[in-house]
């Protein structure tokens, strides 16, 4: 089988404020695959997702990252998004004064423009947004509010999932998409995510809990500690970690 890699990370090293966090990380994700990353608090999982998105202050000191063969590290934050990278953030930021609807319309149309697709007019956009919102239990009132302002933890994650659904990335990173979700909400989000698994779109799911992985079943599970992947395995690895914790991995390196 000739598989196409979506994301190729090679020997990636990165630091935040002079602190080396990502150390020689290697990871390749192929089309249609879902990879899970689990690891102790503070290991650098969120840092990895920010490095991939190109956030200011996260400095790459070595290695390379390719998205569909293109050098991701050379691109600006918005170029990466337009090329199909998407991050569900662990802590989505509130933006008072910017209405969710108009924010998303800019985002959708900037990405469509980049892909050479025609821009959506307001009517088309609103219709699409409402339909997708409904699937995730997001009502029109919520869409009218400023971006994330006053949203509960669960609402924020649902809104992130909605954004993923309408921006249709080819590489989605979910940083603790399950945190703050009650069981029902987790099912809704997982369903939303699963409906985006189309055999092509690749996903990287960062989580602490095997529960999410029961809904979004990964092809590979990685253990992330000390700045890189220390172990990879099948979905059963999540089960194993539940019992053993991370002590063994952290100790190993230290």
């Amino acid at each position: 089988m000739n598989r196409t890699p979506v994301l190729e990370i090679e020997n990636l090293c990165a630091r935040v404020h002079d602190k080396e966090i990502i150390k020689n990380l290697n990871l390749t994700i192929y089309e249609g695959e879902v990879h899970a990353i689990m690891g102790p608090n503070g290991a650098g999982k969120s840092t990895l997702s920010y490095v991939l998105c190109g956030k200011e202050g996260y400095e790459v000191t070595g290695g390379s990252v390719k998205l569909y063969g293109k050098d991701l590290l050379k691109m600006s934050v918005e170029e990466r998004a337009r090329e199909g990278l998407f991050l569900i953030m662990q802590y989505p930021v509130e933006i008072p004064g910017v209405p969710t609807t108009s924010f998303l319309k800019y985002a959708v149309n900037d990405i469509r423009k980049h892909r050479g697709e025609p821009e959506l007019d307001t009517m088309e956009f609103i219709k699409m947004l409402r339909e997708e919102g409904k699937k995730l239990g997001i009502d029109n009132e919520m869409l009218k509010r400023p971006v994330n302002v006053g949203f509960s933890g669960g609402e924020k994650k649902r809104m992130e999932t909605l954004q993923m659904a309408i921006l249709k990335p080819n590489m989605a990173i979910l940083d603790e998409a399950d945190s703050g979700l009650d069981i029902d909400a987790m099912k809704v989000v997982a369903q939303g995510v699963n409906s985006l698994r189309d055999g092509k779109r690749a996903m990287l799911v960062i989580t602490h809990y095997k529960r999410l992985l029961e809904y979004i079943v990964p092809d590979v599970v990685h253990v992330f500690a000390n700045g890189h992947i220390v172990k990879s395995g099948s979905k059963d690895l999540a089960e194993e970690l539940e019992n053993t914790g991370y002590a063994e991995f952290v100790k190993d390196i230290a």
Partner: protein
Amino acid sequence: MSKIVLKNYADWQQDDTNTTFCPKLAILREKGRQAFLSQGLPTPKTEAWKYTKLRNLSDEEFVVESDDKNSFHCHDEKCHCHDEHETGSHEHCCCHENCLPFEVYEVNFCNGKLKADHFHTTQGLSIVSLTDAFENGDVFKYLNKSFDINNFPFAALNSAYLEQGVMIAVDKNFNDDKPILLNFHSHGDIKRLSNVYNVIVAESGARATILEHYYCSGAEKSVYFNNIVNEFFIGRDAYIRHYKVQQEAFKAFHIALNSVQVKQGGHYESFCLQLGADLSRQETQVVLKEPHAEAEVNAVYKMNGWATLDTTTDIKHISKETVSHQLVKGIIGGKAKGVFQGKIHIAPDAVKTEGYQLHKALLLSDEAEVDVKPELEIFADDVKCSHGAASGELDKEQLFYLQSRGIGEDEAKTLLIKAFTDEVINKISCTAVAEWIKSL
């Protein structure tokens, strides 16, 4: 026509321009001249001008045009000059009807000169040129009455040349959302000092919307100086909305004093957007004279380059149970400088008053600067007062979030800046004006 270099004001002992036959007007002008001479130009030592340097405003040689005595209407018997006065002619440079997305009652000034002396009005609304108002005489009850000319050098200078402007009077029969537009169009390359003085009188129960628009066409690099005074007299339970958009040429000077008196239950709602000029000062003094008088003094200023934009307020709570709100936001880029001086004064009798003030600035470059001087003078007990000031850059987390969704950096910044200013613009109760201002 005469020429004036402001820094040489001491030479201005002899005045040849004050040639009106209207004795009351001559006295006012002379008082203005004396008040200007005794104050002199503000220096960095002048407390009210501490942060705003005049720079080349004082060095430029300005032309001051004034109609000679022959074109004055005056109630003085010696004067029979009505016929010569320009009537109703609109020059095509005043394109306002076409530009604004809503209907207005229109008053046009071109290079500081009133373009007509008849105005379309309606029941309860009267607009007359100052020239006609001098003739009628009523206006003398109001001119210079709401502020002390000895504290405002540029208002004094304005008074010394008193001639151009309108008197607008509204009574309770007027209750129209359609704004009264004072349209100030500048063009050409004569370095002109234009002094315009407007008097707005709202009788008990009147409601009206005044919109000032200053702009320049053609010569982007025009150097001119618009020196404006507006006096507002807001009667019992009257509600006046006063909006202003200042888009002067980027080398122009703009100094405006808005002096407002509010009687019992009256309401002054104001918003000012400053976008242009090299040096611009918007000074607002409000006297809340009687119980339940209220004032909202909101503003947004936005500039780049080397400009200085100054917003100065002085809200005087004289009577009990009066209320004031001030929200001022600035967006400063390049090497520009924002100045906010906000004063709330609460007199001993002004118990149970509320005065709120907040200034926020967004600094878009390392060399952008903002100077803020809040002042609270509270002499009464049982009042609610607050003031605050904050300045900073655009929020990096917010910017990253927007960009991570594919929105370009510039567009993301624009969205955040718009969110920042919309908070103030949304306080404009006239939605047509608010929408227009958002589109600028």
